[in-house]
């Protein structure tokens, strides 16, 4: 798998979130950040509008609101993640219902194993070792985790995560620039998934002229264009999740969602109001 090299991109500028959703094919293995990181919610809504099917979601390392929405809308075949939760708003209702009714396969992980698997792909190595995990029932369901003897020590076994190479890294950024770079700040899990994935699609709040990599103050928070397949502007594109420095998480909306999505009917009305109908509106 890893012998198929990843591309060096010349970043494309696309029109909007719909255009990005159109690039993500049915069946794709899509890596997504947690709700407290930078989630490309407008693309998630566009995926639901285009009736994406059979997606496999990777939580880096956990999933939340965006995954619950995609699962409820029937776009998802499988999730590989350390958790799916709405945080303080409680359990993810569509996720729980889909699993309990046998409609969704869950590949249960634990956070640092996800990070290690992605870091292996980032380095182009087939696996990475980790301490702990041995004795957890998680290992019984993962044939991509194996135990391995420490070659430097007698009688010392470790678990190893096979490299995880997503088809798509998808997230939102505060800024993109003319050179195709995006600014992700301290959310470095986004850099890791971009490094590891075959394609990386990013929506952004605002465009900056010039090249952020030439600015030593901005550069540490930049993901370089070489990793970015395409970008599209999506103002408030993370809503109802947040973008630090721009807007916070809309806690009231997430609570309202949690309440409505307890039933399939309530979820359908939520979709109709906040996802499907917006397609008819001008951007």
């Amino acid at each position, binding site marked *: 798998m890893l012998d198929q090299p990843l591309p060096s991109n010349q970043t494309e500028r696309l029109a909007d979130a719909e255009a990005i959703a159109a690039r993500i094919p049915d069946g794709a293995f899509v890596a997504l950040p947690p709700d407290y990181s930078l989630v490309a919610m407008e693309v998630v809504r566009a995926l639901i509008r285009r009736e994406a099917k059979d997606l496999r979601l990777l939580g880096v390392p956990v999933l939340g609101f965006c995954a619950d929405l995609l699962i409820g809308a029937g776009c998802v075949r499988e999730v590989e993640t350390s958790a799916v939760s709405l945080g*303080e708003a409680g359990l993810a209702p569509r996720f729980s219902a889909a699993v309990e009714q046998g409609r969704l396969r869950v590949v249960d992980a634990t*956070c640092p194993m996800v990070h290690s698997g992605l870091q292996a792909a980032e380095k182009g190595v087939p696996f990475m070792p980790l301490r*702990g995990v041995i*004795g957890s029932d*998680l290992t019984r369901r993962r044939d991509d985790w194996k135990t391995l003897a420490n070659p430097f020590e007698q009688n010392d076994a470790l678990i190893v995560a096979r490299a995880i190479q997503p088809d798509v890294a998808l997230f939102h950024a505060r800024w993109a620039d003319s050179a195709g770079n995006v600014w992700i700040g301290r959310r*470095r899990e986004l850099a890791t998934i971009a490094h590891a994935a075959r394609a990386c699609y990013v929506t952004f709040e605002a465009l900056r002229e010039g090249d952020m990599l030439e600015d030593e103050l901005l550069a540490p928070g930049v993901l370089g264009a070489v990793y970015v397949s395409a970008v599209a502007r999506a103002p408030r594109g993370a809503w109802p999740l947040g973008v630090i420095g721009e807007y*916070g998480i809309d806690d009231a909306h997430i609570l309202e969602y949690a309440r409505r999505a307890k039933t399939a009917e309530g979820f359908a009305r939520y979709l109709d109001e906040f996802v499907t109908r917006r397609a008819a509106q001008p951007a």
Partner: protein
Amino acid sequence: MAESYAREELLACTVARLIGDATQTAHVAVGAASPIPATAVELLRARQGGRPRLSLLHRRHGNPFSEGSRELFDLAGQGRIDVFFLGGAQIDGEANINLVEAEGRRFPGSFGSAFMYFAARRTILFREEHSARVLVPRVDFVSAPGWSPPGVWRRGGPQALLTGKALFAWQAERRRFRLESVHPGVTPEDLRANTGFDYDAPARVATTPEPTDAELALLRGPVAREIAPNYPAFAARLWRIAA
């Protein structure tokens, strides 16, 4: 006895005692949603000139990390996390925890527990609900094991289990919990009836110490002000303080 206090305040003071003073504990990490462990750490910090260091995973502003969501696990791997907290949909008498599934119900998932329970130097198990549904003889799914056989690397493990009714100490050599104290108003019989697993208990069971006036003054002053920005609903309910 102290003036009237909330159950959350009792629990926070108990957690603070478990963490211990700054000579024992340099760095506490608090994950996920519960504000009570964070309150306990802020109580210690108010007493000890800002020690121990507190890393709040989901702090919305001024998050302590600059390496993304990987950094907590790397820190723990390095041995730089002294105390961590875990809960469970189920917890059993061997300190195994289950965050995945029980009785046909699906829970969020294991988060980082399968690593943190090994790598943090001490883990305090914390679950407010104390019932035979939660505290079971054997978890349905081991998200993270309470102990590991010889030859499996393990830096740390459970220190104690604190619930809304009682405090248990973990006896590593016996692989069993021992009842340390019941909270005011709970009887040992009540406790036994609501606990699904067997545990050791002394002949005369102590009562969990109540918060002192000094503790309550700190909790309701500087601690409340530190907690409010990150746990606004909790602080508003408990102390009527805005973020």
